């Protein structure tokens, strides 16, 4: 502790990681608000929620779960690679992570546009004629997966920055806090999806 005070530009790995963990708490509470709303309305309209969930394509949902779980693994492996000073392997694994994230987003795009074709989107006439519970289900579906997709995009940007920094050697065997924090963030994105998937797709 004491020698870290000698220089203002000191590099405190623990502080950086702690800051990230606290930030992840806030993210959990952000989604927590939505999960709370979900819980309230699912209790109130459980039959409608089941009907709404049966409209979702659980195959695409499962595929996306596989993509995200695999990407969590590759990003963890990339961290081990950089710790072992294997720069090329780390670059490869981060790229794979970004690609899996892109596949996830592509699936999401097809899924949403498919819904849009059937005029299932907030404010549409089709949705307004559904039961109130189904209406709320789709409202939650768009809000939760939308906010989650936004996090996937942010994660992809973070990982791309890592790609550049690993290439330049700024993120290296001795200093890999950025990659470690990005990986933590990526695990959070994955973790939230693990809860979204059953709550939205599998409750039929």
């Amino acid at each position, binding site marked *: *502790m*004491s020698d870290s*005070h000698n220089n*203002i530009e000191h590099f*405190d790995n*623990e*502080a950086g990681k*702690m*800051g990230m963990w*606290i*930030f992840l*708490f*806030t*993210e959990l*509470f*952000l*989604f*927590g*608000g*939505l999960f*709370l*709303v979900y819980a*309230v*309305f699912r209790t*109130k*309209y459980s039959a409608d929620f089941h009907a709404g969930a049966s409209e979702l394509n659980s195959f695409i949902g499962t595929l996306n779960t596989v993509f995200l779980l695999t990407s969590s693994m590759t990003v963890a492996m990339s961290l081990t690679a950089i710790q072992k000073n294997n720069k090329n392997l780390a670059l490869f694994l981060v790229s794979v992570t970004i690609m899996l994230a892109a596949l996830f987003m592509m699936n999401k795009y097809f899924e949403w546009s498919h819904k849009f074709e059937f005029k299932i989107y*907030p*404010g549409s006439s089709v949705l*307004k004629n559904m*039961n*109130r*519970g189904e*209406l*709320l289900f789709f*409202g*939650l579906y*768009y*809000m939760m997966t939308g*906010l989650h997709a936004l996090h996937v995009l942010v994660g992809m940007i973070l990982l791309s920055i890592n790609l550049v920094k690993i290439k330049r050697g700024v993120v290296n065997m001795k200093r890999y806090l950025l990659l470690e924090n990005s990986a933590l963030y990526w695990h959070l994105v994955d973790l939230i999806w693990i809860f979204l998937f059953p709550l939205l797709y599998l409750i039929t």
Partner: protein
Amino acid sequence: MTDTGSRTYVSYLDHQGRFKGIFSWLLSTDHKKIGLMYLNAVIVFFFVAVILGLLMRIELLAPGRTIMGPQTYNGMFTIHGVIMVFIIVIPALPAVFGNFFLPILIGAKDVAFPRLNLFSFYLYILGAILGVLSQFAGSGPPDTGWTFYVPYSAQSATNVIYALTAAFILGFSSILTGLNFIVTIHRMRAPGMTWFKMPLFPWALYATAWIQVLATPIIGITLLMVIAERVLNIGFFDPALGGDPVLFQHLFWIYSHPAVYIMVLPAMGIVSEIFPTFSQKPVFGYGAIVFSSLAIAFVGSFVWGHHMFTSGMSYWARWFFSFTTFIVAVPSAIKVFNWISTMYGGSIDLKPPLLYAIGFIFLFMIGGFTGLTLGSLASNIQVHGTSYVVAHFHYIIFGGMGFAFFAGIHYWFPKMFGKMYNFTIANISWVLVFVGFNVFYFPQFIIGFQGMPRRSFDYLPQFQTGEVISSIGSMVLVAGLFLMVINLFRAVYKGDPAPANPWKGVTLEWQIPSPPEHENFETIPEIKNKPYFFGNTSTN
């Protein structure tokens, strides 16, 4: 501090970093400069909101339309509330005094993430500007009240989205400040400064920071849901679409009640610094103050329902929230006993900071007691929609947090600017502010009890006496505020140089020159004693 001759001393005010001129401020990551920038912003926005408040008081001089109609009045109290709550009272104490003094009080050179600190300052400015813009731009000032209750906030044709976005961004800024402080306190304490050798202001900030981090995201997502309701027709809170307006109120108060403790905990921290210094006596019951801070932060997270006794909740929910509301008064009362016992038998030096701190106790106690009237189920129904609530709220927020802010600025002013202000004028302005405040808000309790509705531009003739007394009080209060600010501004430029330790304080900020150097400490101090150790001051 004997070896200052070996190198030249440059105050942080004159320190030039990588950037010159104005950019040495705007792009500085020095916690002290960021704290001062927050201070300037807070003062500017404070007077914007004060003027809105004064205009409302003028409107209320007589029943019926005096200077503005109902729509304008609704816009005024909404923006007054949004600015005061989200731009001033929530951020002011942590962002101004926390930024400036937290690192110094724990013997660090800066906060843990200086660049993040600057970033949250700019988020704050962005949110503040959006908040003020909502008053002037687009389709008219928002008229929902600062609480944004749905379904009205989803339907009102005014600039509600601006105000919602502003509150969202300000919340994000608040989260980042809190995060920064938690990590700073965990990682940057000087060698020897164990948790229980930490002064009480950092402790208060620590409890506050956890509320900021854990509660603010809830308001963030809630505001996003209201925005989605307005923009995308997602009706979480719209009964016509199956939603539930009371659910909004729960989500709103899950944050906004703990936000009251974000405001008042650092205020308690500041006066806990002031009482020992001006009594020249160790603080009474250090541990009790620390644990009551943590207890307030914890219990305060489970009282939000007391804002909704008239909104429709189950019997047991109301019982629970009323009970926890009474419980949370206990740690606050413990602190009051501690401060008074600290003064008992001390050599009291009645300087302006102590006057404000004593004012804080007096007003906070009135606010606290009237809070119990509101917290008990039966009497709440009687006074819920009346100006009694307005008076209670302002006694806690302005009388509590506001007075602690004034106490803090008078306490630390010599350290921040290296100048001393005029005591006589400071004392006169204290009298004006204190008397004006009580004349302003106390009648609101009485007419509120008699049925004067809140948030109304009009009233029945029988309330006029009370309203006129209130308005006169508000003018005295504003005069006092102006006098205080003028006195301080004059001191920045023309005040006498302040010594390093004008109040004979023993915490770390008084051991370094006024104003401090760029990196606070030449050598990081080693902490051996408990804080507020007045016995043999030379050992510090």
